[in-house]
C-alpha cells in the first residue's frame, strides 16, 4: 500500500494560494524567518502522481507527493511577489501564520525528504511536468491578470476533425500541454467532419466546443 504525503498544492482554484494571496496583495512578505523549506506541488502534477501511484505496483509505503525542487519560503515569497509585481518586505509574524494556516504553520510546512522522493519517482518512471526553477514563476504567471494559474505550457492545436489533427491533439496533450483546439467552418463540403468528429474528439479530451 502506498501512502501519499502531499506538498502545498498550488492552483488558482484556491487551496493554499487562496490563503497566501491576501497577505501578498497587501505587500506582506516571507513567513517567519523565511528559511523553512516549502515542498510544493502543482495540481496537475499531483493528479499525475495519484494516477501514477494507482498503477505502479512497485511503489509502497510513505511517498512524498511534492515537486522535485523544494524552495525556501523566502524564495517562494520573492518569486510570487515578483510575479504579482508586489514588493514583499514585511515578514508575516508566526502568530498570524498560525491563525491563517493552523498547524501547517508550525514546521509542518517542512517536508524535506526530497532526495528519496526523487529517487522513488525516477525509479518508477514518473516525469514531472514542472521543470526546476521555472515552476513557481511559470505557474503563478497567470495570477497577475486574474486568469487561472497555468500549471502547464499552453498550445494552440489546429483541429479539422481529420486523423492528422486528432493525432496532433493527442501528441500535444501527451506532451503535457494545456490545449486550445481551434477549428474552422470555412464553407467546406465535408463540414460534417468538423461537426461530428472534431467535437467528439474534444469531448473525449474533456472539453465542450463553442464559437
Amino acid at each position, binding site marked *: 500500500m502506498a501512502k501519499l504525503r502531499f506538498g502545498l498544492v498550488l492552483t488558482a482554484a484556491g487551496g493554499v494560494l487562496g490563503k497566501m494571496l491576501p497577505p501578498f496583495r497587501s505587500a506582506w512578505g516571507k513567513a517567519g524567518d523565511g528559511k523553512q523549506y516549502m515542498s510544493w506541488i502543482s495540481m496537475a502534477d499531483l493528479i499525475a502522481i495519484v494516477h501514477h501511484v494507482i498503477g505502479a505496483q512497485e511503489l509502497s509505503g510513505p511517498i512524498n507527493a511534492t515537486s522535485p525542487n523544494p524552495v525556501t519560503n523566502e524564495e517562494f515569497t520573492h518569486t510570487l511577489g515578483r510575479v504579482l509585481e508586489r514588493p514583499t518586505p514585511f515578514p508575516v509574524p508566526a502568530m498570524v501564520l498560525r491563525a491563517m494556516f493552523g498547524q501547517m504553520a508550525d514546521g509542518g510546512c517542512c517536508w524535506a525528504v526530497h532526495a528519496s522522493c526523487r529517487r522513488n519517482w525516477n525509479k518508477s518512471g514518473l516525469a514531472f511536468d514542472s521543470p526546476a526553477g521555472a515552476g513557481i514563476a511559470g505557474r503563478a504567471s*497567470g495570477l497577475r491578470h486574474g486568469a487561472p494559474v*497555468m500549471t502547464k*505550457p*499552453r*498550445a*494552440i*492545436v*489546429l*483541429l*479539422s476533425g*481529420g*486523423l*492528422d*489533427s*486528432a*493525432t*496532433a*491533439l493527442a*501528441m*500535444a*496533450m501527451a506532451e503535457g*500541454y*494545456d*490545449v*486550445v*483546439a*481551434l*477549428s*474552422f*467552418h*470555412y*464553407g*467546406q*463540403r*465535408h463540414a460534417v467532419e*468538423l461537426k461530428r468528429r*472534431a*467535437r467528439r474528439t*474534444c469531448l473525449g*479530451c*474533456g*472539453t*465542450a*466546443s*463553442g*464559437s
Partner: protein
Amino acid sequence: MVRHLEVELDLRAVGGSALTADIPVPKNRPPEELSREIPVTYVPARNTLFLAYALGLAETEGAADIFLGVNALDYSGYPDCRLEYVAAFRASRQSGDLRRASRARRHSEFTLR
C-alpha cells in the same frame, strides 16, 4: 485541454478547390497518384489562414506552441504542408510576434495509409 474554439470563415469566396467549389471530390485514388500533383482537394490559402488565426490566438492565450497536423503523404502534394512552408511561417511568426520569440512546431512523424 482548455477549450475548443470554432471560427467561421468563408473560403467559398476564393473557391478553386473540390472542397469549396463545385468540383467533384475524387475518392479511392491509389497513393502513387496522390503524390504526383497538387490535388483538387487542395484549398488555396487554407493553412495560411488557419495558422494566422492560430498565431493570433497564441498571442492572446499566451501559448508558445502551435500544433499543425500535416502528414507525410500530404507533404508531397499540398504546397502548404511542406516543410519549407512551415519553416517560412515560423519565420514570419518570429518577426511578427513582438511579445516573445516563439516557435511553431510541426509534427509530421505520422503517415496515413
